């Protein structure tokens, strides 16, 4: 509990410190990290809590991003309309994809979620009216109303932080509610849960839809934050990246998404922006090959530390 309070205080104080040294770039960067934390946390709900290895989560993030962007382009600029619409449409997409995919198990489920996400990717790419594969630039961020200016990096950061904390709190409550217990029971032993009489298919679908809806929110925020959206947000490499964040952070751990997003994005940023002298002497343009480093780190984590960073701090190891 003390750690949680300390983390929240740090997150709240961070933009104040950054504004004090007049470094708004790192406030904007932190907003991006928090948005990815929302996306990764939503995937963690399906992946870690529900045990559903969904390899198409970018589809829901992308759907949210496109719904918000298209509404903005059509003149609906209020965040109070855009973001709920993004959540609703992503939830619908998750319901449709989940309804078919959850009929299958294991490897089939992984591949089907992947294939459906790729289908959404091609669908978006073929929407020529909204930029096609070139993407869609927006003139500004969604308007928050209430006298708040979304264009202000510090304000936007606090909005994202508020949404992330709300999501984490909801997840925390959900995991301890009856629904969360049933989800965990199904993950641990689906046949037994079915035999006890839990509605397995319905519970898994509900869990999948909630994850998709939260992913949609992350997408809407992402589009607002960057004022730009392109089909790459739905690409399956993006799904893989979200998965990496969850794994690095900690599967089925409440803070796993935040830790993973912060670790991965910071690592990428450090590799790209801060050249290391001895590494640069060894391999002159190593900064252009960040994927190699990320891949190797991921491989090592999977082979040797499957519980992720959060797993290092918990005493009781979760059953795989």
């Amino acid at each position, binding site marked *: 509990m003390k750690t949680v309070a300390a983390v929240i205080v740090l997150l709240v104080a961070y933009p104040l410190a950054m504004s004090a040294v007049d470094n708004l770039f790192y406030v904007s960067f932190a907003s991006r990290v928090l948005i990815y934390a929302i996306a990764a946390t939503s995937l963690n709900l399906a*992946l870690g809590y529900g045990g559903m*290895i969904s*390899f198409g989560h970018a589809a829901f993030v992308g759907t949210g991003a496109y719904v918000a962007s298209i509404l903005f382009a059509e003149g609906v600029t209020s965040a109070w309309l855009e973001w709920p619409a993004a959540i609703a449409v992503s939830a619908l997409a998750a319901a449709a994809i989940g309804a*078919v995919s959850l*009929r*299958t198990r*294991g*490897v*089939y489920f*992984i*591949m*089907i979620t*992947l*294939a*459906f996400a*790729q*289908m959404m990717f*091609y*669908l978006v*790419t*073929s*929407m*020529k*009216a909204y930029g096609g594969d070139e993407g869609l630039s927006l003139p500004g961020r969604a308007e928050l109303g209430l006298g708040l200016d979304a264009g202000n990096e510090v304000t936007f950061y606090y909005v994202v932080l508020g949404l992330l904390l709300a999501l984490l709190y909801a997840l925390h409550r959900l995991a301890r509610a009856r629904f969360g217990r049933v989800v965990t029971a199904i993950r641990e032993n689906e046949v037994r849960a079915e035999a006890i009489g839990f509605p397995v298919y319905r519970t898994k679908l509900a869990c999948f839809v909630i994850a998709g809806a939260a992913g949609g929110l992350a997408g809407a925020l992402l589009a607002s934050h960057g004022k730009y959206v392109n089909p790459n947000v739905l690409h*399956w*490499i993006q799904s*893989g990246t979200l*998965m*990496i964040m969850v*794994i690095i952070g900690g*599967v089925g751990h409440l803070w796993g998404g935040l830790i993973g997003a912060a670790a991965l994005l910071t690592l990428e940023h450090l590799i790209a922006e801060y050249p290391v002298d001895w590494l640069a002497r060894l391999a002159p343009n190593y900064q252009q*090959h960040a*994927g*190699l480093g*990320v*891949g*190797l780190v*991921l*491989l090592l984590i*999977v*082979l040797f530390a*499957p519980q992720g960073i959060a797993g290092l701090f918990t005493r009781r190891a979760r059953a*795989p």
Partner: protein
Amino acid sequence: MSWILILEQSLNGLQFGLMLFLLAAGLTLVFGIMDMINLAHGSLYMVGAFLAATLVQATGSFAAGVLLAIAASAAFGMLLEVSLLRRLYTRDHLSQVLATFALILILNEAVRLVWGSDAPLSMPAALSGPVELIPGLMYPSYRLVIIVVGLAVAAALFLLVTKTRMGMLVRAGASNREMALAMGVNIRALFTAVFGIGAALCALAGSLLGPLLAVQVGMGENILILAFVVIVIGGIGSIRGALVGSLLVGVVDTIGRAFLPILFGLFFQPRVASAAGPAIASVAIYLLMAVVLYFKPQGLFPARG
């Protein structure tokens, strides 16, 4: 929309489907026998194509270069299996997905380091012209060669799996791994061999498709998803399913792209048709997959009973 055009597009679909089969066959065997999800299968396709580009240039002969690339890729695949993938068989699917996803990132960057983002690979000059198959139908001879090679390899693979001792072991492993183990099958050696064959098929597909598409980093990722769709439709572990699935996907995708926009033009206004046609065509195979799965969650030809 003449019947010549329909015939030509059907041949294109057949050609694409056969190349998909080369990828899907290796993938479905690895899945079926080892219960292992290997996302890096598409990277083997990429590595094979890049090797072919270099070796064709080095030897000056397309056929020799491709054959050498196939041998080299098979060796590379087996090396990968022995050194890394073997450790993943006993792990859960999530670990396999992540480890092989990491492998994609690593191989993409490694190829970029060695070759750069792309490599030139052109078809042999003798095959660059069209041939007249029947009066009025001119068809590129290179594509025709791909069809012939694809059919030959498919037949050889079918004989290998159904008629040889190794094929019998492969089928035994796919339908019940524990039982095959209990009967004293040397599964380790079999896995390595199957992986080598899968890598060789990848390299063949990569080097044959290279001149038509492009040899570039990331080329394996899009076709990998199509191969997934194929084996999900066909049923994991089934060579027959992979063949049927590949041809279905190849033909539906090619025909859909060629004719759906025209078909939509007959019923809708041009503005709607030109927007909706390509969109529906690009998702046609995924809809096909959804329909198949809705009725047969195990695919068309489930290998396990």
